[in-house]
């Protein structure tokens, strides 16, 4: 717990331009479940969470992302060496591009910039009907719309009712419901699949 809180302080320090960037790097990563067990910054249930941002990247300057939310509000997000970044898989800052969608969680700085602890780029969580299976692709029906889910060799995994994640997708059944965690291809109806959850 202390480690997490120290990490949060280091993020803030790093974002403010102090020597904390070195500290954050030296601290290294911590287990994700431990990171999210940190005491939450108090926000009224039901209210907008000021420590969270949803939107699309409109520009990238240095390590700062300018993001436009779906309600048209603008947000500045500072990426530090301590920020964990996910884009289909854990990745690095250079993989973020203008036009990407994202969710970010972090700490608000006095100038309203969000010092990001975690950024999930283009992440989608789709509950869908499996309409068809093609070569390295799943055709998904989601809210009346077709989504093309690309199978990414070496990354895509299936979880069949709590089995360990496996690369074998042969147990997926057309006509059944699945849940897919994936990464959206901006401005298309296509995603890359990270994990598909299905009944065996």
């Amino acid at each position, binding site marked *: 717990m202390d480690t997490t809180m120290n990490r949060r302080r280091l993020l803030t320090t790093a974002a403010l331009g102090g020597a904390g960037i070195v500290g954050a790097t030296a601290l290294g990563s911590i287990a*994700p*479940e*431990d*990171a*999210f*067990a*940190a005491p*939450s910054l108090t*926000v*009224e*249930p*039901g*209210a*907008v*969470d000021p420590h*969270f*941002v*949803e*939107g*699309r990247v409109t520009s990238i300057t240095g390590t700062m992302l300018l993001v436009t*939310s*779906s*309600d048209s509000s603008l947000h500045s997000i500072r990426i530090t060496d301590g920020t*964990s970044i*996910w884009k289909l898989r854990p990745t690095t800052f250079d993989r973020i591009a203008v036009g990407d*969608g994202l*969710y970010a*969680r972090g700490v608000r700085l006095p100038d309203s910039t969000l010092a990001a602890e*975690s950024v*999930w780029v*283009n*992440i*989608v*969580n*789709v*509950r869908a009907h499996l309409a068809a299976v093609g070569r390295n692709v799943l055709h998904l029906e*989601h*809210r009346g*719309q077709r*989504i093309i889910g690309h199978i990414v060799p070496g990354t895509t995994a299936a979880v069949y*009712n*709590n089995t360990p994640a496996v690369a074998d997708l042969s147990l997926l059944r057309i006509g059944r*419901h699945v*849940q897919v*965690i994936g990464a*959206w291809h*901006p401005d298309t*109806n296509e*995603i890359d699949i*990270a*994990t598909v*959850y299905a*009944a065996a």
Partner: protein
Amino acid sequence: MAALYGEVSWFCCGNSWGPCGSTGHGACGTCNSGSLQHAWPNTSDACYSITRPDRCGISGMSRRTCGFLHYTTNRCNGARVGTRIADCGPQTDLFCGERTCCGSVCGTNRVIDLTPAAYSRIASLSTGLRPCVVTT
């Protein structure tokens, strides 16, 4: 309400990017991905007729309406978040018997869906599904 054990996932709402672009603001008309909110399977008769947790053997799930406060704890790490009902869901019966675990801690059947803002307070969005306990 007695503590309800099961699985928690997340869903987007409010008109956002990607597949979330057409999701709208949920059954309560207030749902937004950036707010601390959740979907509950028993907000009305019409809602319950869709989600049907009883088909998965879950009986006595309380009728709670828009704005009601629940607390969800991620049983993998003990992190807890308070959220208010903003939508109907998840569709529990589509995944009857589904189980998710971390180590020896397991949850069976989907009982609550959190917004990304709420879920990311207790787990990484990339996990998708966690065992949980829901309390009032």
